[in-house]
């Protein structure tokens, strides 16, 4: 059992449990540039929701706003019934939002074991949990190696493991497939599905369209900072506007 804290009766990720994350009319201006324009998104609890859009459409900016690294110009972020707009990143993390960055942000000067223990919540048997996660990610044989020596794919797995240590309710994944070899990618996808089965909510930015179609129950499309389309993957990916904006017609 790697992922703890799931509630009984919750599973599958398809049930109607209301939204755990509500993006309410979020706008973000950088000088004269509008990176996000009145974006409204709801992410259902226990779901895997995809966020797609061309480069520069504001996807990562939106993740930065949810996790507190950037403050919005207007609008509110409601997580788990609480207004978390503009809070410090560490407070949002403690509230249960786990962010996996686009570039693996791990502590390179530390061992894998130390990397994971930093993320441990106070109390509980942190060491045992570290071993569980290392085994889950098949990295346990490297526990006391420096994180510096990991391959890029392993670094990204380690980062996912770090976020799992926090036992977050919502996991924000920024392009988990980028730079990972196909064999490892299958592992990553299976890990993501497993997490959703255990009641985690996954909000995922991804450019790999087959992966999105395969993994997500809902897809949200951003284009030039605006919400272009949303719905189930089949409908959204076949939408003429989406194909034009994103897939190049």
């Amino acid at each position, binding site marked *: 059992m790697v992922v703890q804290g799931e509630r009984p009766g919750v599973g599958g990720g398809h049930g109607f449990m209301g939204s755990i994350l509500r993006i309410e009319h979020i706008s973000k201006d950088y000088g004269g540039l509008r990176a996000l324009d009145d974006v409204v998104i709801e992410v259902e609890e226990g779901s895997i929701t995809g966020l797609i859009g061309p480069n520069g459409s504001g996807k990562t900016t939106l993740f930065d706003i949810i996790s507190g690294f950037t403050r919005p110009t207007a609008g509110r972020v409601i997580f788990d019934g609480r207004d978390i707009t503009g809070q410090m990143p560490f407070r949002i993390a403690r509230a249960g939002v786990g962010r996996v960055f686009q570039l693996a*942000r791990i502590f390179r000067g530390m061992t894998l074991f130390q990397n994971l223990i930093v993320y441990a919540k106070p109390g509980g048997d942190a060491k045992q949990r570290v071993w569980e996660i290392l085994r889950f990610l098949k990295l346990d044989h490297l526990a006391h190696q420096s994180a510096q020596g990991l391959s890029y794919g392993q670094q990204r797995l380690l980062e996912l493991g770090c976020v799992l240590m926090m036992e977050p309710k919502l996991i924000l994944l920024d392009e988990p497939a980028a730079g990972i070899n196909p064999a490892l990618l299958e592992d990553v996808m299976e890990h993501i599905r497993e997490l959703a089965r255990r009641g985690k909510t996954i909000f995922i930015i991804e450019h790999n369209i087959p992966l999105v179609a395969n993994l997500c129950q809902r897809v949200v499309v951003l284009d030039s900072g605006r919400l272009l389309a949303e719905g189930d993957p089949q409908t959204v990916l076949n939408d003429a506007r989406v194909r034009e904006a994103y897939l190049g017609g």
Partner: protein
Amino acid sequence: MKNPEAVAQAPLTPSASRAHWLYLAVAVLALGLALIPLFRVRGYYIDVLWQFCFFAGLATAWIIVGGFGGMISLGHAAFTGLGAYTSTLLLLRMGVNPWVGLVIGALVAAAVAGILGYPCFRFGLRADFFALATLVFGIIVYELVNGLPTITGGPYGVVVPFAGNNPARFSFTSRSNYFYVAWVYWLLTVAVAYLVQHSRFGLRLMALREDEHAAARAGIDVGKVKLAALMISAALAGLAGTLYAQYYLFIEPTEIVGLGLSVEIVVIAIVGGISSFLGGTLGALILVPLTQLLNIYLAGAYAGSDLFIYGLILMIIIRRSPAGIVGLLRRRFPEV
């Protein structure tokens, strides 16, 4: 994905047997130094021993914030100076026992560190600008001590009255006793640094040194952890100030508050290795005797040549081992 070589190298737990040798070496060093005064050596050697403890303790204190936390402080002498002036002025004006002054001085240093650190860390000042902020802070404290002669004696300094052989008031006729006090101080800083390095707090500190965003993502209150590290370090640096004042019975801003001492602390820490609780000790073990030797054999003969050679030796050490002496030791003892 699997790397057989890495599997072979990875021990399940760090080897404990070698760590024992390391701790034994530290214990032998500490006890060995403590025994030297029993052999009726000349006062000069006791003075060198005292200086070793003073500088090793200061550099170890510095490493808690500058090494573990990666926040380079270029104004640490200001904390030492605050400790020295607090206890001395309390003694002169209100007759406060220097042992009490020792503690109050450390608390004042920690409080001032809090006032300096809070705005720096609240607004996420980058490490390089933090270094500049501490440099300016050091200069400000120096100028204040220098520029308020009615309170501090200004550039002429303050003479501390000698209270005869009165251990209850931090006064001894034997030099060795001052050394034993400094010895306890040195080991205190090493113990604190060891505890920080091996605690959750220390791990958080090292995490934010590596990547502040990732540390915040981990739920670490980056500003609070940094502030705590700076205040602990400043308190320990403040203790050294009273040790200095009581031992030399004279303090003046250039010696105990000035930039020179700040730089000396940083250099000792870097030569020893800023990533370990032993860095300050190893740095002082090399540089304190080296300074003395160069001073004796060169400074009198050719003015300035001692500093030239000192700089040259520093360059060689840093070239050979950028991680300091600790970097060399780590190859055999990963626990350092």
